[in-house]
């Protein structure tokens, strides 16, 4: 009965309905087994039934096993009058969907970001980490074009404020030399870089320096020690192209976030680059993000890796 009320995708006639359903980690995993059985693929081990849901924010450790970590999230920029309510809604949505931690950045509304602009964003991210302790993890957003100021900001955020990584957007294509000092600093600190990316078969005029999977793979070859995350493979570009472009770049992880819910995306990513290189994300498309993982025809163990294991492995490589 518990499974039916709290974890099933449908209501059960005759049973009471919870007024506020909170989805759980088991919810992410349960239907995968059902799908596999229904279509006659290999049977899953019963591990999914044994996975218990931690209470959100209850652990003192920011990286507890069994958590669900959204590797790509954003807090609201405070130029929005509704920023505080919007941030609360994000946490409430995470609560509903069984997401324990959100790796967040704040981007400037106008880009390229100025140094003052990205520093302000990072102060607000840091404040968000304090307002939602244990729930919000911070990415330090910088524009690499600011050279020393960007590097100082990364050191301040990672070293003093407890941020977990660096967020790079579209100010520069990630293969431009101006980006390299940021990558080298990330290697020194042992933190990942979440790189905004998309690949369309046309020139994206409003993002002329957009990186794609090919660029990130090139950067990964130059810096094999770097930990790179290719953002939102479901973010609108040709995800099949992106997955194939990243095939041989072992130090790149693929973030599943984005609004596109094309069937087969997560399975192809896991098959081509290996399930150890796929990480769960939403990028504000919350039900899409959760639904893709739940719907993916992968084993419970593989989903565990995507939901948190792979990200935790990455974050544990921090050097200080």
């Amino acid at each position, binding site marked *: 009965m518990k499974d039916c009320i709290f974890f*099933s*995708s*449908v*209501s059960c006639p005759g049973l009471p*309905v919870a007024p*506020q*359903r909170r*989805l759980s980690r088991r919810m992410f995993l349960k*239907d995968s087994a*059902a*799908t596999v*059985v*229904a*279509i*006659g693929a290999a049977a899953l081990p019963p591990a999914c039934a044994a996975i218990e849901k931690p209470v959100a924010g209850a652990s003192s450790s920011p990286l507890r096993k069994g958590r669900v970590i959204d590797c790509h999230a954003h807090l609201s920029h405070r130029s929005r009058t509704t920023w505080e309510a*919007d941030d609360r*809604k*994000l946490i*409430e*949505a995470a609560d*509903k*969907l069984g997401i324990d931690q959100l790796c967040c950045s704040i981007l400037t509304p106008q880009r390229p970001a100025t140094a003052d602009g990205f520093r302000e964003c990072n102060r607000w991210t840091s404040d968000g980490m304090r307002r939602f302790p244990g729930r919000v993890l911070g990415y330090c957003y910088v524009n690499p074009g600011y050279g020393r100021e960007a590097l100082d900001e990364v050191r301040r955020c990672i070293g003093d404020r407890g941020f977990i990584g660096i967020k790079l957007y579209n100010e520069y294509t990630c293969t431009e030399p101006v980006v390299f000092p940021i990558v080298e600093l990330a290697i020194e600190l042992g933190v990942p870089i979440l790189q905004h990316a*998309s690949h*369309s*078969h*046309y020139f994206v005029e409003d993002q002329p320096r957009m990186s794609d999977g090919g660029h990130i793979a090139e950067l990964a070859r130059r810096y094999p020690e770097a930990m790179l995350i290719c953002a939102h493979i479901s*973010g*609108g*570009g*040709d*995800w*099949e192209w992106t997955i194939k472009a990243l095939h041989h770049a072992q130090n790149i992880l693929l973030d599943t976030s984005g*609004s*596109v*819910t*094309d*069937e*087969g995306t997560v399975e192809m990513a896991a098959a081509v680059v290996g399930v150890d290189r796929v990480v769960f994300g939403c990028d*504000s498309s*919350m*039900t*899409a993000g*959760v*639904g*893709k993982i*739940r*719907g*993916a025809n992968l084993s419970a163990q593989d989903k565990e890796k995507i939901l948190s294991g792979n990200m935790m492995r990455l974050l544990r490589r921090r050097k200080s």
Partner: protein
Amino acid sequence: MIVDVNAYLGHFAFRRLRYNTAVSLLALMDSKRIDKAVVSSASAITYRNAQAGNEEVAEEVRGHSDRLIPFAVINPFYAGWQDDLKICHEEFGMAGLRLYPKWHNYQLSSTCCRELVNAATERGMVISIPIRVEDNRQRSWLLNVPDVPLEEIIELVKAHPKARFILLNGIGYTGCLLGRKDNVLPSNYAIELSRLSAVLANELGQLITNLGAERVMFGTGMPFNYPDPALVKLEVLDASEPDKEKIRSQNAMTWLRL
């Protein structure tokens, strides 16, 4: 009971689809506890002669009419569409249409399209319109098919108050007349939820408030899409159980006379 008003069979020209046969789609539906699905031909989106896709779907759903409800894809600018409509309705038992004005390169306001809508309405057929087939940012280098502008939908529903429309794969309704309360439009359209947000902006909740739960229908877009995101929306939706039941199945069953 769950009824999906937004499902497909067949091949799509630009991406491999799995679960695109009747047998495999039904297996997927079983695994998600989806009881019935309205299906049309994915191939007919790019076939020049869409009727060939309708014939494939008719063949595919044979023996599964208790669960798969076929809709016809008709291009009102293609020769013989009147014959195709008659065959789809009378011989294939297709209860409705799916229209692709942008993929088939015609205007919803054109005379031919209006004739088709009128003919389908006279037959009691429901007319569904996918606002998009896939995200335009991942389009092939061969073509650039825009989403159907909601403004064109507004004009269509106004021009055909007796017709019944289901709008698929859309968002942004609350930003225009279609999703506003007391919008003076005829109540002749329902909105399918597969792309609507159910948290954060929560357009789904807003539509229920503005239009009523009677005007919202469950749909997934499978096998183009994973069915699970739509199911998750229903699970987290802050609505009464009777309203959820309307969305899950009752509205579709009423409209489709199931």
